[in-house]
């Protein structure tokens, strides 16, 4: 997925830096804003805005922190430029601090949706910016123009489905469907809104945990798993690689090694994935998760016998009842089916269903 510049900047920041290097000022400011740790970054924000040479991106991040701390005027003055990031920051302030939806639309060069709510093709000065679309959509939503907001929100989510404002956008889309009595779409949107809100809440919690416990890999593993759950292996790899770059102790964490191997596999980097997983296996040979990831590498290579042996080992392990390994039972059943062992495949699939799985065994059944 192609991200706009402004949105890419909002991607996971602070946890992708190696443990032995401090976060950059931009990372600090963005983390403070996103995780509501405002007081930790206000001094930096003031220094930044006092520096006439500060980059617009930095000024924008600093302004948002200061606005959230209550210094709205200082924030606005320090972020008065016409660059996209600065206008986005001012638009966000106009939306979240000043209840000024017209101001948001004006700053972002939106066509006149409040006056012409039925226009089919909304336009925007910075049409490549997911954040601009989303802010305009939110502004329209707050002004009560939910139907006019809808195309803006959809455009924004189309450009960046994981944007920080995505939970809000999905909630407004649900409200728009409810408002027009769309009983088919509303339940789907309700479910999507619920899932996206839950994902973002977990993402924030894991980031906070990682920040509070920099020497603990589990929150980073949790972050990576969240990204994998939404098919974003590159983003999943970031916090793991940052951890592994931390030192000898970090490099010997089998859980991080194994999961990073899976991220590499999903990115199509099979050789690197194999290497990572072998290293993890050498450290803890019986770990089921590592073996499962190795089986997936073998499956990608259509090496069914190897995949079968690894999957059988995984499913025989007592850890196989863990929900995280549920899919290993399905994969084993399908490998057996593909290898012609249909009776065995059915038995394995039955075990998979018994453990709570719901996917069918064969493509025909699908």
């Amino acid at each position: 997925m192609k991200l706009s510049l402004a949105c890419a900047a909002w991607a996971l920041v602070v946890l992708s830096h190696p443990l032995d290097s401090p976060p950059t000022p931009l990372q600090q400011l963005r983390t403070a804003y996103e995780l509501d740790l405002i007081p930790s970054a206000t001094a930096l924000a003031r220094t930044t805005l006092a520096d006439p040479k500060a980059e617009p991106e930095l000024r924008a991040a600093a302004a948002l922190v200061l606005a959230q701390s209550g210094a709205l005027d200082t924030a606005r003055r320090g972020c008065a430029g016409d660059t996209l990031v600065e206008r986005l920051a001012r638009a966000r302030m106009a939306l979240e601090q000043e209840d000024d939806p017209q101001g948001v639309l004006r700053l972002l060069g939106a066509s006149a949706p409040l006056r012409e709510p039925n226009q089919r093709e909304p336009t925007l000065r910075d049409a490549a910016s997911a954040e601009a679309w989303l802010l305009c959509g939110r502004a329209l939503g707050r002004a009560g123009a939910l139907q006019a907001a809808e195309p803006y929100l959809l455009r924004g989510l189309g450009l960046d489905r994981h944007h920080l404002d995505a939970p809000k956008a999905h909630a407004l889309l649900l409200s728009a469907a409810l408002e027009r009595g769309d009983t088919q779409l509303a339940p789907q949107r309700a479910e999507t809104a619920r899932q996206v809100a839950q994902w973002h809440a977990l993402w924030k919690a894991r980031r906070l945990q990682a920040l509070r416990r920099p020497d603990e890999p589990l929150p980073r593993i949790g972050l990576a798993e969240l990204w994998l759950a939404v098919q974003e292996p590159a983003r999943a790899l970031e916090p793991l690689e940052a951890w592994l770059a931390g030192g000898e102790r970090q490099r010997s964490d089998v859980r991080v090694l194994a999961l990073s191997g899976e991220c590499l596999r999903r990115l199509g980097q099979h050789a690197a994935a194999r290497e990572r997983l072998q290293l993890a296996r050498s450290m803890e040979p019986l770990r089921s998760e590592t073996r499962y990831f190795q089986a997936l590498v073998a499956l990608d290579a259509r090496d069914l016998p190897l995949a079968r042996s690894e999957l059988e080992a995984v499913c025989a392990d007592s850890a196989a009842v863990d929900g995280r390994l549920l899919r290993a039972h399905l994969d084993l059943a399908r490998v057996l089916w593909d290898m012609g062992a249909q009776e065995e495949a059915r038995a394995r699939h039955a075990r998979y269903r018994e453990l709570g799985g719901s996917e069918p065994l064969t493509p025909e059944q699908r």
Partner: protein
Amino acid sequence: MATVTTAPRWFSSARLAALLLLGGAGLTGGCTPDVPAQAQSEPDLHDEARARGVDYINCSGSASKDYILEANGAGVALFDLGADGDLDIAFAQGLARTQDLLDPALGTDIVLYENDGRGYFRRLPGPGLRGWWTGLVSGDLDNDGDDDLVVGGFGSSVVLLQEQAGDQAAPESAVLVRATELTPPSTTQTAPPWTTSLAVLDANRDGMLDLYVTQYLDLDPRRLPQGSLGNAPLDVPCEWKGAAVYCGPLGLNAQTDRLLLGRGDGAFDDASERLQGLVPAFGLGAHALDADSDGDDDIFVANDSQPNFLWINDGTGQFVDGALALGVAYGAEGRAQAGMGVASGDVNRDGALDMVVTNFSDEPTEMYAGGARGFTRLTHRYALGRETRALLSWGCHLVDFDGDGWLELVSVNGHVYPQADLPDTGTRYGQPVTRWALGPQPKARLLPPRAKDSIFAPAVGGRGSAVGDLNQDGRPDLVVVRIDAPASVGMNTEGAEHARLSVRLLGPEQPSTAARRTPRDGSGATCIVVVKDAAGSEHALLAETRRAVGFQSSSTPWLHFGLGTSTRYESLIIRWPSGAVERLPGGTANRALTVREGSGILTSRTFQAP
């Protein structure tokens, strides 16, 4: 039975000495009084608590607010003790430390004040309760024609029935008899029940008042949470904006609200199964109202950090949660807010009840306009997002204090975390009570304090609050519980140029045999006052008789209308809970009318001089 109340045990001589050393200035800690200035000048709501004999000082745990119970503070009820026609005051009260809950001997009583009829008060002996008390609500629970009281608390909640010891109507002849303990029937929860707000309503229209009991969360005084919640290393630190604060509500177990059907004698039966789809939630505010204008009592519940409930009544006392479908479950952008208090009124004078819900800092006080298809959020169109985002608000009211015919929004504010006073949090621990005009312009307009002794002036955090005409001058007054500080009694001197009308709606003295009946105290009755303005055009002012308003508190049953410059009203239209509708002819303004269903106007008196 009533017992003599001694001085609060936490107000020891040592504390008094400490206060004197500090010069008595400012808020110095839990259970320590603040000293308000006394000076009356401009029209305002002047805090005359001391001068009028109200010396209640709230006690709500440690000043550092180590545990969540200490942050929520207490409620207040205005009710008529002694059936002498004026409003007396009951305050809930807490303890000096959460850990004191482990020693039953350390429990405290509620605090009562008797009104002399002119708005001056004398402290009365309390009813002899022992506990940590939170919310209060009043209503005629035993249908004997006087106000009773329900007291919610941490650990237990009780029904106090008022009985008259003599023939004379007077507070000193009244006793509050402990009638019923509202202990949950289920013993599945290990932590004590924690009741916050209580609402009286008539769920099934049998003419007997019922109770909605809002429950908060599990807090075990023997194992108080601190530092973080969950298991390391994936525990979640108890932090707010990076500062360590008390734990909860998120991460703690929510409790389940209850619906209790009254038997008409002060006893209740649990009927929570009538709340279809009821789930545990961090409930804080409860307010009965006819949300869908179908003539029955619905219930809005403001939940903390979880979706709100709007229990829609099918007319028989069976409820389903319509909050999501009617647009009041979540914030505008789908986030569950930290709801605290709730009030209703016809803000835009369109004949449908509108609603305000107070929330946490960084969340707006929400305003919803009632209509045929549910509620429309007007929060941001009224600029309430901008106006309220720095405030953490609790009690709220929609009242026409200045009598111009347009409702004002009052919110009682104060942060839960003393850490709000750390630099750059964007908010403060102590916050003033704030008020906005909501009409005729469709934008909230802040009404700043004008007098030095204005109830809106001091930035001392408040929690519960109640509205009522304490001195019977026709102008609604405001009582506010300030956390760990003296209560405020705001006497209204505004709107001398405006005319007013006060109306008290009462159900039949003898219960009828009809299928639908009006409760004797008129709970749920709606009054519409038709007024003609100077240009000759008519408008209608609508209000419902509701006691549970705001947060953990109970306001007057009188309905107060501002008539602006009109010197008379054109007619009264009353919709009784029984289904009957009465239209009464107009009359002169500046009167207090008592109307009984089927009997017309019982009494009509002019207002007292303030």
